[in-house]
């Protein structure tokens, strides 16, 4: 059963004013429970608008968005419940921290849901663990943490609401390579353990290739591809035409293929590419 379904969404900014601008046009897709979906697209392709529509921060001009087969705008007064179910981690989420302690900040979301005492405490500690925060950091001020730790705290604040769908908009932007790796593997662990649906917006094709099962490709406000990650990256030339890239290792494979060497261009990770080339070389030696 699909968790999130978008039906012919159109979204116009500033409708009815001189600044009218169509951000999304005729976007439809379905995402199943437990999928790890990536969203890629050039800057200004409508990715951010799309994710904001999914958790009810924006209302589609036309079309419907369904969460568990129910239109999220059926009862506009209850839109808060949709936001609890579709957790949204914005770009640079560390700028939203405000409480005196990390613990209180993580508890902000679940508290708004009406959780109290033991249940609240359990959610907060669990979320902190998933995000890779130490127990002793929970009592310190969020403003004393390092940049990477702040981001973990902010992500924990969303995870603590235990959403059905977790959307992350460029969660690794501005982190150092080690921090990136750690954060991504934590997100992956979270996905594996909770079996939740995760949507990841990213400009790093390597990250996308490593984590996601399926990909939404946006260009100029339209959904132009929706397929498994391998199949999308197999259409490398098309992606390059709209200003996107394929993972570097896939690019190498494509270049080898161009030179007449018959390699499988669907290798998305360095490990796969490595074994592909090893196979090829051992074949030549034989």
């Amino acid at each position, binding site marked *: 059963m699909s968790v999130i379904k978008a039906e012919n969404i159109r979204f116009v*900014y*500033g409708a009815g*004013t001189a*600044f009218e601008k169509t951000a999304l046009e005729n976007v439809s897709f379905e995402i199943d429970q437990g999928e790890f979906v990536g969203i890629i697209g050039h800057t200004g392709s409508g990715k951010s608008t799309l994710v*904001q529509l999914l*958790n009810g*921060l924006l209302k589609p001009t036309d079309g419907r968005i369904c969460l568990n087969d129910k239109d999220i705008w059926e009862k506009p007064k209850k839109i*808060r419940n949709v*936001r*609890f179910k579709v*957790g*949204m981690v*914005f770009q640079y*989420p560390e*700028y*939203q*921290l*405000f409480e005196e302690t990390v613990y209180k900040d993580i508890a*902000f*979301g679940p508290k*708004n*849901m009406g959780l109290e005492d033991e249940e609240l405490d359990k959610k907060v500690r669990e979320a902190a663990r998933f995000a890779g925060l130490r127990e002793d950091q929970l009592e310190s001020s969020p*403003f004393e943490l390092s940049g990477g730790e702040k981001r973990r705290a902010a992500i924990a*604040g*969303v995870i603590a*609401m235990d959403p059905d769908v977790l959307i992350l908009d460029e969660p690794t932007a501005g982190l150092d390579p080690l921090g990136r790796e750690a954060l991504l593997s934590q997100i992956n662990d979270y996905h594996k353990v909770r079996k939740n649906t995760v949507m990841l917006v990213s400009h790093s094709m390597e990250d996308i290739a490593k984590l996601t099962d399926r990909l939404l490709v946006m260009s100029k406000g339209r959904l132009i591809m929706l397929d498994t990650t391998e199949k999308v990256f197999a259409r490398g030339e098309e992606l390059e035409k709209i200003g996107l890239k394929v993972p570097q290792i896939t690019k190498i494979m494509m270049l080898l293929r161009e030179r007449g060497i018959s390699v499988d261009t669907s290798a998305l990770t360095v490990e796969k590419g490595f074994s592909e080339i090893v196979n090829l070389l051992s074949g030549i030696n034989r």
Partner: protein
Amino acid sequence: MVRDMTLGQYLPGNSFVHRLDARSKILLLIAYIVFLFLCRNFVSLLIMTLFSFLIIFLTRISFLKYLKSLRLVLVVIIITGIMNIFYGSGEVLWQWWIFTVTKGGLINAAFVVVRISLLMMISSVLTYTTSPTDLTDALECLMKPLTIFHIKVHEIAMMMTIALRFIPVLLDETDKIMNAQKSRGADMENGSPIRRVKALIPVLIPLFVSAFRRAGDLATAMECRCYNGGKNRTRMKVLHFSLRDLAASLSSLLIFSAIIISNIMFSNVI
């Protein structure tokens, strides 16, 4: 969307008024206000009104925009208008309980309403046709004589420029933070006033933090470029007093003299 808001009230254009030097616009506005309050009979007021409509016409900005600027002070206009009707002297026209309407009161009310409306509309001409940077540059130039009192005019102008520059940035930031907190279930639209004020805390604290961070970054960036305000600084855009400004000043002078003359020639009612 907060993002769609234009910076200040400036409406870019290329009209005669737009191209006037910001300094002359400020000085002429001050003179205009003085003479607006010097109008003492209906002929003067009529001259001033016609002159105002001419200026508004010359800006090539829709009259609706000016009416919108009036909307902000509509309550003030209505209240002062009504108060003036009852607090006049002279021939009694109508009386009921403690309310007395006099001829003097009616005239006072008419003058007050016209004056405030014109004042608002012509002040809007300045903000509609002058970009905020030109405006602060002009203010800096006009306040320069104050340096002899050891007032740091350049620094004040710089602060104004920076403040104006950061309005859209901070609006954008507010938008983002509000979205982030709403995503965590912050409810800013419903509840009692106290609850709604409390709901602002999760927005205001990150906003302050980010404003201070940006201020620090900007200060560092300015120091890295050896910024040293005040003396000997040249500008990229130099303000020019042109023939156009001369024409505007002379015609204003003409109108203002006409007002003095009409004040002398006709009997004054106020």
